[in-house]
């Protein structure tokens, strides 16, 4: 396939820009031709081979190089698609929304600049992975825990910026970020919060500084390129006890959530716990063909067999107790007594689980901040290896949880897929993440998935449920659902975009935010 050029940029301008990039970073760090294939979405949904394709990539090693690259892009009008490590594979990986963009790959900027054990934080560059930071803490014997998402190879900085979540009490990653360094579209470098004051020593301790708090506008956005970020780390607790509670019936989810809400709001449930569906957990240790050779979603009889074989429920709640044993014992008594009211509830600690691999043994590690790649096992459930996340947010109520579950699972099964969902428990809301596993090699299946996904977005929005994060292919669709008051929020985003990036060179289309010259025909 011929290399794609972004509209408005001719081949000569592109060549001159790439040559300038080579002068900035060295010729070995500019990638073209066949090398660009690695920046493609490994799990594409679109059957249009021209969409979501980068023209080239450039890999700087420092903030100064990022500044120079941005200045050169601004001069030529060539769009950039910044990625930290590019491993957000369920949402498009390193691939750009806008074909012809040059991927700004910051994986070489992988320095852990500071780890402070006394105050519990790290200052990192975009290329630092969870594995990197975990290994650093371990090698230096530091009594700090990470909070990790499921893929340990992801960027600490990038995951926080994309509003990723983990499983410890520090599970809301953007809540735990403190202080940024940002390269703006004109090449200027800004430090946020206390970092704006020369000589200040609380950049990673106090988020807000003085005046408007701006860190949020650099998350899920295209207003600047974050080149450093502080992240708070959890002091190693005096004790740790993971547990799992299983529930037998689909409809139990309503009662479970009602029980769970006050426990979470009162910090009796201390961590960002999850309730996961049968097939999602079964797929960690088995494949569909081991239980069922028919077409379409598994029937109820097969679901019951899996439950019996693997000692898991239709829903499985994994949580953990953190702190001195007397405190953990007291919390556990409250949690156990509360969930014991649900008929058929079963309670497990790791020592109760004999099968390997086992879901609680696996989650016991992620809930203590050990980075892993185990979760990729679920891609094998039906063969074909593709996956995408549909992630609406709802209040923590039983009514909403059951309604969400029925809406999404019904459609997913109608379109021939198994329901593989989890509810990530925030303080007041649920992230209902449904993973749809599909055969990436099947054009028909991708087309069916595309229709399903669009329908899910529409139906969720009609009921007031909005997605918190999405694949690059659906950013416009999701942004379009946040349309209250004649799209007032998007208009504000566009005003900020026009002010900070008037030539529109940073990540056109990210989160549905397009620069002025590319807005024609797009909402609002």
């Amino acid at each position, binding site marked *: 396939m011929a290399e794609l050029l972004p509209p408005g940029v001719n081949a000569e301008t592109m060549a001159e820009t790439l040559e300038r990039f080579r002068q900035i970073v060295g010729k070995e*760090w500019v*990638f073209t031709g*066949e*090398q660009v*294939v*690695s*920046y*493609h979405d*490994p799990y594409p949904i679109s059957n249009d081979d021209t969409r979501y394709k980068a023209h080239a*990539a450039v*890999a700087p*090693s420092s903030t100064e190089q990022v500044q120079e690259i941005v200045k050169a892009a601004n001069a030529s009008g060539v769009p950039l698609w910044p990625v930290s490590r*590019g*491993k957000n594979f369920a949402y498009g990986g390193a691939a750009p929304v806008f074909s012809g963009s040059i991927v700004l*790959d910051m*994986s*070489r900027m*992988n320095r852990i600049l500071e780890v402070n054990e006394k105050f519990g934080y790290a200052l990192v560059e975009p*290329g630092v992975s969870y*594995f990197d930071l975990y290994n650093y803490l371990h090698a230096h014997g530091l009594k700090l825990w990470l909070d990790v998402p499921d893929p*340990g*190879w992801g960027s600490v900085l990038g995951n926080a910026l994309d509003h990723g979540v983990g499983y410890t009490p520090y599970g809301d990653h953007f809540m735990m970020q403190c202080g940024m360094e940002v390269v703006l579209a004109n090449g200027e470098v800004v430090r946020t919060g206390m970092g704006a004051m020369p000589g200040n020593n609380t950049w990673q301790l106090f988020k807000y500084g003085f005046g408007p708090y701006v860190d949020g506008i650099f998350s899920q956005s295209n207003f600047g390129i974050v080149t450093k970020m502080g992240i708070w780390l959890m002091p190693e607790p005096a004790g740790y006890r993971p547990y799992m509670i299983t529930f037998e019936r689909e409809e139990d989810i309503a009662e479970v959530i009602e029980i769970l809400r006050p426990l979470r709001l009162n910090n009796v449930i201390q961590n960002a716990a999850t309730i996961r569906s049968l097939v999602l957990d079964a797929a960690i*240790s*088995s*494949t569909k*063909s*081991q239980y069922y050779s028919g077409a379409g979603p598994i029937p109820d009889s097969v679901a019951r067999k899996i439950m019996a074989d693997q000692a898991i429920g239709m829903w499985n709640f994994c949580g953990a107790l953190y702190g001195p044993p007397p405190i953990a014992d007291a919390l556990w008594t409250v949690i156990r007594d509360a969930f014991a009211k649900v008929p058929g509830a079963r309670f497990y600690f790791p020592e109760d689980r004999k099968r390997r*691999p086992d879901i609680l043994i696996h989650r016991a590690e992620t809930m203590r901040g050990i980075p*892993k*790649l*185990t979760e*990729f*096992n679920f*891609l*094998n459930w*039906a*063969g*074909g*290896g593709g996956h995408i996340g549909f992630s609406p947010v709802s209040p923590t109520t039983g009514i909403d949880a059951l309604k969400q579950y029925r809406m999404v699972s019904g459609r997913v099964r109608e379109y021939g897929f198994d329901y593989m969902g989890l509810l990530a428990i925030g303080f007041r809301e649920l992230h209902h993440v449904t993973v749809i596993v599909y055969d990436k*090699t099947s054009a028909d299946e991708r087309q069916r998935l595309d229709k399903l996904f669009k329908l899910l977005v529409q139906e969720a929005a009609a009921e007031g449920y909005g997605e918190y994060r999405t694949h690059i292919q659906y950013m416009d669709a999701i942004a379009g659902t946040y349309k209250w008051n004649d799209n007032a929020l998007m208009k504000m985003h566009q005003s900020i975009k026009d002010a900070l990036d008037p030539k529109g060179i940073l990540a056109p289309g990210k989160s549905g935010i397009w620069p002025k010259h590319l807005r024609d025909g797009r909402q609002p």
Partner: protein
Amino acid sequence: MSSLVLPNAVISAADVPSRGWLACDYFFFDERFVEARRLAGELCGAIEPTPVQSDITAIWTGGLARADFTAPMTMKGVTTESFYFCLKILLVDQVRVDAQVSRIDRDLHLWTIRTDNHFKNGTVSWQNFSRLV
């Protein structure tokens, strides 16, 4: 590069490319599947095949991440796709990689990954992966 899809195919040692197939540094097989066990027995050559169950984490963090990549290395396997995919992505953070894969049934893939000694500084990487399947 081959990305041949062979649903329900019966693969034997005689069916796979002969050049280099019996020489490798690691051979991984998914011990849960009869076909993987059979092919491991036929194709692993002189080395002891390593049983896995999809998850690459322990193999990687338990030693492979610290392997000496200064010399070219060949790894082969009959595994689920996620094992192959994760290994490939992890390796390209270290070295340049050439990969070939064939799907042999609903669950299993037969694959070869060869590394060379370019870009082994561990700082960058996966853009060196020129043959993503």
